[in-house]
């Protein structure tokens, strides 16, 4: 390794409160804490972050997929998730004390799935209508299927 090896000022050896990479964004300090992760395909996962690696691949434990429709949300328990780092849009720690402090209303899984289906349907209808209208006017917007869109 050319040059001197990296050193981390302020590191206490061995203790539980190790200051990993102060001044930088590192996921090491977030381990074993409850996180909310938004993926590129629009899914929202909530789980305990158990393991990370250099690519920010995540291992989530006791994961729950939360679906939001309007002011309602529903949780689907999923178990253990291993997420490839490149698919993560953002993630943030959940404050356990304030976790339930939401104006949103929790509903059952069936209900939320139904609501989601309805929402998707409506979106598709709107999209169809829009493209029809454009076609009538002789315009066409190319569909961006490959982009992260949700």
């Amino acid at each position, binding site marked *: *390794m*050319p*040059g*001197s*090896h*990296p*050193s*981390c*000022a*302020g*590191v206490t*050896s*061995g*203790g*539980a409160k*190790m*200051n*990993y*990479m*102060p*001044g*930088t964004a*590192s996921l*090491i300090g977030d*381990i*074993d804490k409850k996180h909310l992760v938004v993926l590129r395909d629009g899914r929202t996962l909530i789980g*305990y972050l*158990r*393991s*990370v*690696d*250099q690519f920010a691949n995540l*291992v989530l*434990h006791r994961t729950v997929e939360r679906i939001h429709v309007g002011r309602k949300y529903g949780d689907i328990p999923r178990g253990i998730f291993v997420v490839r780092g490149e698919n993560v849009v953002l993630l943030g720690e959940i404050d356990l004390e304030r976790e339930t402090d939401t104006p949103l209303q929790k509903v059952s899984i069936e209900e939320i799935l139904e609501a989601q289906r309805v929402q998707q349907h409506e979106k598709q209808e709107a999209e169809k209508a829009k493209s029809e209208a454009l076609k009538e006017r002789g315009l066409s917007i190319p569909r961006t299927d490959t982009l992260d869109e949700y």
Partner: protein
Amino acid sequence: MLGPGSARRRGPWRPRDELASATQELGATSREMFALGEGGGAALRSLDESPIEEDEEALREEDHDIDQFNEDTFGTGAVEDWEEQHEGLDDHAEDPDDLLKENNLAESISKLVIDSDLEDPAIMRAIPSNPPLQAPPRLNASMWDGPMVFGGIGNPFLSHLEENRMLSGSKDSILPKRPALGQDEERDLSDRAPPPRSTSPVIGSPPVRTAPIGTPPKHMSYLASQQPSILCPTPVHVRAPIHQRFSAPFNERMSPTQLLNLANSSLRAHHFQGGVTQMLNPLLLGTAQQTGRMSPSHFARMPGLVGSQLTAMKANLLQSRMGQMMPPVTGFRPYFSPATAGHLQDIRSSQSIFRADTTHLHPQHRRLLNQRLQLQNSRNQHRGLNGSAGDRHSRGSYHEQAKKDPYGNLMTQREKEWVSKIQMMQLQSADPYLDDYYYQNYFERLEKKQAALDLNSEGPKKERTKLITPQVAKLEHTYRPVQFEGSLGKLTVSSVNNPRKMIDAVVTTRTDDDETKEKLVRDKRRQTLFTIERTYSLVLEVQDLEKKFLQVSEAERPAVLEQRKSKIIQMYENLRGKQAHSTERVSDDHFVQIMCIRKGKRLAAKVLHLLSTEQAANVVLATARNLPYLVKKDSQDEVLPCLTEPCSLLVNRLPSSALTELLQQLTGSAQSSQPGSQFPSILQNKFGLTLFYVILSQGERLQSSEAASELMQDNRWTELVFAVTRELLKVPQASLAKPLFVPTNLLALFSHYVDRQTLNVLESKLQLSGKPR
């Protein structure tokens, strides 16, 4: 086709031959046979080194025959010559570790083993505990051999041998050495039990598992009870049972793969009764303290040990490991806690355990599996260590954590450090200000703020934890393309660094007369743009140099200054154009071209700050001279006001003569004594008017400050001011631009030159008294 090893079997090895043929019947390919032979061969290879002369000659001959057969079957090069490969792995030299003198002991023990009759485990049990005392050093050796913990003692050894035979053949190059230890025992006992071979006929496929992967150990309890006295189980039975016989330290976090493997190895270990077990325990304790090289993997084979004993030993292990640092880790010593140093040894020791079912795999597959298992194993072991050792440590936090969160610390400290290490490596850079500009700037600002706060508070300086990223020297990597030896001609291998040339792109210039004129114009504009870009880079470089200047030592500072100076000269030349003759005035053309472009104006503003007064004055003069034209060009961009600040700064430094000239140029009255026709247009422009005011203001300042005013002595100034005042009166108020600021002393200036009435008019017109419009 039989593998090289199989042919050597004669006499006591006959059963093996039978097995070999049996396997063939089963449909195993010869490849597998070879693999089987590999294991045996490797085990037997050391035979050549051990002092057994009977078969040496014959063996070598057989070797040659077998090799020939193999070549016939598989073709040259198809079969890896593991013997050659493993040549280097063999520990020919004396083990530098003086503590153990393992080779000597190994030999003595091996002799012991040969002497004793190891046919029957029952007999083994009856052997008094003399041999055990010599066994301890073998423990070290058994790191490499895995299962052979207690050489010459009892069944664990016995039963492990077949495995070891298999395992030894599959040594990877990862293992630096493989001590030549009592492989003779293997030879003797190789017929005790058939090797744990899978019945899978396909090379590379995972071994057949009687339990599906992922089945937790609990489901296997019924099998354990069935076979308490199996001495030489058939391969099929080997896999299934024995999971439960693991002692406490092996928590449920071990993968079923590992559990199965462990079961494999420890199966035979279970055969001995309590007496032997008791023999083993003190031994273990003794060895742990002595050698300090025992790894938890050894505990796997000591099923009789109770959990508490194990943990005590593990505590010992931890301590003994403290003193050892592995060479590959030296570069990051501060990163790795001492406890993890011995980890690499664990890998090696555990490597052999889990190879039981991988012998029939393709070597590449085997290696990959091993590596994966290593990682798993190390993780598990560490976890196991943490789990048990952590409890013993008086760290309340860990204990609490474990209590509250049973799944906590799945990621071990070592793993966290590993990831951190990688992230730190990514931060190393040759030029942090280039690679990580925003981070550096942000932290500098933070520190300044903090320093300011500290100064104010004057309290104890808080130690802020700061990430120190080292500056790595920039290494020049010259890429040398891959060259093959022994190939005819130069083979081209395309890679990321030298991609294959696909297209022959040739630049062709069009010589079309029609396009010439447009092309010229285009080219000229392009030239100007290039000049602007180059000058901008110079500005950035000068900024960097200024920063460097502050950081560099005293000795180097002059050099930095020199560099800066030369760059500034270059900048000036770029801006104004090169002077053909020193006396001849440089044409403004080049400069005007630059100033027509938005970026050029901004550039001029930046450069003005760096130039000397004379040079800057030159630039501003040129600007003033051409201002009407520039104003016209700037009508869309409106970027000229950016020049206000540097210009005003300069003007305030100007002596009277230069000032007069500047005013002259500005008003366009250089040739004639009257302001040019373009002058009103300047007044209508924000920048123009502001500059104008600034000049006047400076003039007033000079006038009022100097005792014998130079300014007044020069008629030109007075005339100019008169002329300008007239113009101002002429210009309608509506068309006057709104200046960026109105200097306060203009009123005073005008009062010198005009009467009261006019002054009032001027005042109201130009809003000189500062009243809002």
